[in-house]
């Protein structure tokens, strides 16, 4: 029983990180039908910005988180403008290959400047923990922060998408870009906005991972990036609630598998899920049947 609780706590924490990243994949895909394979590397940049701020500038955790989010959202906007915007009318494979190149570019540029070695994230949160059930279930302050911040960001996102003019324009554009244009929506602005939001969430995820696992390196984005992509597909790519559900599901499944003697397979689980989803339910858990764009 205690085991189950502990695994849920760990799974939800990890799942929150996947969910934050999956949201970026899904929002960008919703608007321009691009799998932004550089998304995991934006998360890596977020982790490094957070690391630099807390280590060299002694900035507290929350301000560092916000500054990292601002920095990655700017990075997302720039990447879109320079790399993807010129390719909007090109075949999808062109944009996909470009995304992979941007991913490599970010990884190795970062490596050039900071070196390939793993860095240790400072202890920015006091290491306290709550113990339950005779100390068999440990709820660390870090878990609380991760879960709380994930939830706050998701609620904020939900508010933006449901209630603000820009958010509604985003939803309309993801349903029908041309029709949104006919309403007077400036498509370029909506796309920039989408990249900004998705990248800010990825930046936040990067900082959270930094404090959770304490270590960061320039290639840290590739595997979680792929897994978050799987989470987005599992939830139904293009569907915002789907990304959240997919992220948490994947985090929990992965934690359960690795806690039950499957830690060797934990990275394979995500891809097994991907294959199963594509075979059984290609639209994902909450995805709608692909609408035909005429």
């Amino acid at each position, binding site marked *: 029983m205690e085991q189950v609780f502990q695994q849920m706590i760990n799974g939800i924490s990890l799942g929150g990180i996947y969910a934050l990243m999956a949201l970026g994949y899904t929002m960008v895909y919703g608007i321009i039908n691009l799998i932004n394979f550089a998304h995991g590397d934006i998360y890596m940049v977020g982790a490094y910005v957070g690391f630099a701020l807390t280590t060299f500038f002694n900035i507290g955790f929350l301000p560092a988180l916000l500054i990292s989010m601002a920095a990655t959202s700017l990075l997302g906007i720039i990447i879109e403008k320079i790399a993807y915007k010129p390719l909007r009318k090109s075949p999808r494979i062109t944009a996909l290959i470009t995304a992979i190149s941007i991913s490599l570019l970010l990884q190795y540029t970062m490596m050039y400047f900071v070196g390939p070695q793993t860095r240790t994230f400072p202890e920015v949160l006091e290491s306290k923990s709550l113990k339950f059930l005779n100390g068999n279930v440990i709820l660390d302050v870090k878990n609380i922060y991760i879960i709380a911040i994930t939830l706050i960001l998701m609620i904020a996102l939900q508010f933006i998408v449901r209630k603000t003019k820009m958010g*509604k324009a985003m*939803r309309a554009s993801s*349903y029908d870009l*041309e*029709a*949104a244009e*006919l*309403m*007077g929506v400036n498509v370029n602005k909506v796309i920039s906005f989408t990249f900004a939001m998705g990248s800010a969430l990825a930046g936040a995820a990067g900082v959270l991972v930094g404090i959770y696992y304490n270590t960061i390196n320039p290639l840290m984005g590739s595997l979680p990036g792929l897994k978050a992509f799987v989470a987005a597909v599992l939830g139904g790519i293009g569907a915002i609630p789907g990304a959240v559900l997919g992220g948490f599901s994947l985090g929990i499944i992965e934690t359960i598998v690795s806690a039950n003697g499957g830690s060797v397979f934990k990275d394979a689980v995500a891809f097994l899920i991907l294959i199963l989803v594509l075979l059984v339910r290609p639209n994902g858990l909450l995805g709608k049947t692909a609408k035909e764009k005429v």
Partner: protein
Amino acid sequence: MLELKNIDVFYGNIHALKNICLKVNQGEIVTLVGANGAGKSTTLKTISGLLKPKRGEILFNGGSINELNASDIVKLGISHVPEGRRIFANMTVMENLEMGAFIRDDSKNIEEDYEKVFSLFPRLNERRKQIAGTLSGGEQQMLAIGRALMSKPKLLLLDEPSMGLAPLIVKEIFSIIKNINALGTTVLLVEQNANMALNIANRAYIIKNGVIELEGDPKVLLNDESIKKAYLG
């Protein structure tokens, strides 16, 4: 009000519009009729800025608009109800209307205009909170027109509003179009359903294979069997 001068439009190598000249005067209902694939939708998309002409000029109230983006053209007062309605099926009726008012920020007048749309389309009023995708075809068409009206257009472009609808609903929609025109909005109506369109229009153009073949008084065209046979299939 609107003038197309020698417009040529291509899809890749396909020459879809050939030297199109067309005029709409303030207050009119002008209809552009022709068979499937004639180039009607292409004409409207070119006016609203979704497509760019390769040659020619489009003037709206004296200014050239063919270089502008679709989102800027709406702001000038041209609103396009696209073929197949293209409502935001994932959003509510109300949210669709809000999107229609996207370019405006006079929130008080917007509220009044929602009510005007609901008085034109009482069926939408009962369905404000309903997800637009669950509306019937006729209601979706009404929503598409209502959404377009929310930008307060001077010129309304309608692409086959009768498509796929039962005759009774078509009648209702056409009488609303007349109503909208009577309230001061100029209308350019594209239709395959030539009879209905010619009946409410002040002037008509017939398009075939990307070429304007005829221009004239709709009443005359309506009664000319040879024209009907040749162009309106």
